[in-house]
């Protein structure tokens, strides 16, 4: 497990607590008072640290190797899920998963980018960098949703769309564009949640929804901070500064009017308590679908268009 600077003291405390617990169990000694004390300390430290997270810390949290991924949330949130494969055009992209799920009384089409937990899976999933076929699978599932009037939930978690030669040769740009177009055509309720990294075009390709939510420590950005720093200062190591400049946190997105809601994560971020995070996510999603269920198909279509029509900040000179 990668330990980020700001997480170090917490992890040290957690190790100490763990050790004491083990000691208690093995030797039968009662160390509960010390444990409780350390846990209070941990709690205080977490609060302190998480009250002052800088944007770059959020970038690190969004990319945290223990952060729950799409399939984790599907498992934790959904009553049932059957994955469907393939773009029906020659490929099945493991970087995007999708299928039919039951969630609190709703029957849904769920689509999301999927990172890998270990090296092997990470490579198989291409680090959640989808190729054209990933977005084309998504489009096929969106159209299935439209046909059978199933609401659509997307979970966004990608550093970027795959930029390689193979993806370019199969039209990654077209696939991203057409995925957005397809989402604009839908007349069923759609909800997108940025659960980790919302990496530029690769992310928004799945995030053209009636409601767009973000987890508290997720990010959403037009360019990775490293790339931004490389362009501005010709120095990728100044990424933390770029992260400040880019305003890529969930709070920024909310303030800029680009998302509808920030879903709180448990103290210490989602990876410290996936179950609780999944519960919050679930209830936020259900709330959105509940509200959207009041709209007619035509209203859902118009609502989505109007939502994105408004986006942008500019002046108009007389």
């Amino acid at each position: 497990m990668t330990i980020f600077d700001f997480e170090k003291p917490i992890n040290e405390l957690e190790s100490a607590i763990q050790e004491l617990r083990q000691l208690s169990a093995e030797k039968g000694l009662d160390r509960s008072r010390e444990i409780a004390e350390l846990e209070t300390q941990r709690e205080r430290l977490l609060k302190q640290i998480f009250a002052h997270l800088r944007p770059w810390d959020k970038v690190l949290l969004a990319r945290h190797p223990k952060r729950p991924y799409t399939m984790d949330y599907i498992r934790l949130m959904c009553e049932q899920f059957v994955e469907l494969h393939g773009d029906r055009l020659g490929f099945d992209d493991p970087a995007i998963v999708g299928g039919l799920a039951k969630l609190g009384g709703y029957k849904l089409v769920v689509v999301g980018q999927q990172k890998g937990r270990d090296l092997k899976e990470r490579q198989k999933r291409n680090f959640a960098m989808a190729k054209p076929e990933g977005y084309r699978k998504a489009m096929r599932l969106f159209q299935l949703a439209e046909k059978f009037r199933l609401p659509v939930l997307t979970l966004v978690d990608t550093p970027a769309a795959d930029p390689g030669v193979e993806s370019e040769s199969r039209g990654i740009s077209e696939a991203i564009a057409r995925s957005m177009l397809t989402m604009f055509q839908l007349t069923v309720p759609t909800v997108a949640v940025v659960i980790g990294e919302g990496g530029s075009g690769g992310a928004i390709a799945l995030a053209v929804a009636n409601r767009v939510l973000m987890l508290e420590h997720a990010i959403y950005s037009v360019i990775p901070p490293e790339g931004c720093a490389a362009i501005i200062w010709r120095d990728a190591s100044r990424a933390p500064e770029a992260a400040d400049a880019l305003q890529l946190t969930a709070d920024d997105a909310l303030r800029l009017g680009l998302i509808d809601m920030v879903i709180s994560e448990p103290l210490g971020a989602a990876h410290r308590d996936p179950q609780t995070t999944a519960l919050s996510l679930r209830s936020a999603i259900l709330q959105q679908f509940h509200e959207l269920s009041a709209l007619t198909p035509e209203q859902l279509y118009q609502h989505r268009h109007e939502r994105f029509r408004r986006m942008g900040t500019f002046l108009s000179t007389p």
Partner: protein
Amino acid sequence: MQRRVASGSSEQWVQCQKCKKILFKPDFERALRVCIHCGHHHRLRARERIAITLDPDTFVEQDAELRSDDPLRFPDYPDKLMRAQQTTGEFEAVITGTGKLGGSEVVIGVMDFAFMGGSMGSVVGEKIMRCFLRGADEYLPVILFCASGGARMQEGMLSLMQMAKTTAGVEKLQRAGLPYLAVFTDPTMAGVLASFASLADVIIAEPGALVGFAGQRVAAQASSGKPPTNFQTAEFQTEHGMVDLIVPRAQIRPTLLYLLEMFGGAG
């Protein structure tokens, strides 16, 4: 098509950026800045493009009053904007409006790479969106000349959202059943290619134009094999099914006329 491109320079000789041969400027301008030796299509400014595309004196600019804000207070963004405005004489990276093509009214938008690399921020997104809405409202075809490095970093997420916004515009125009023609000029990249640009009914590209998603270095790094020599050219994209036809600059106007005629009436 042999109208002369406006030019501010008074020198009589220019050098081809590709083959480095020396060209007599009046000839070069008459050839619409295509090198007579190697065929290299040199970049045009937006208003030059409008001049050689539309019927003379029919262009009416729209939405020229829109100006970029600095919503993120991004380092140096106001300076960059001001410098771009000074060097280009334009207020933004796309010029939009209406005009006539072969006597028929069209909506036209032309991106200007000279203005901050043709990058798409809120103003570019809004102006392109209005092109599509104007097309749908006034029942006019839309023609867009693309030239862009991608989304404008300095407006962060707001620029990213312009990808979705302009795509919504395409969707509205499509639903209205009107033609949308795109011309990829050098370069057409990233956030512009991955949104409205790739969704045209017919896509024309200028020969040799750079057309692609990621920067060449990033693409190469992310791949096992070596990119082909024509990687991310208009020709590469045509081989890979993303461009309908490559058209030399002088033939673009007649091609647009033919396509609009085909899409304009019943068979």
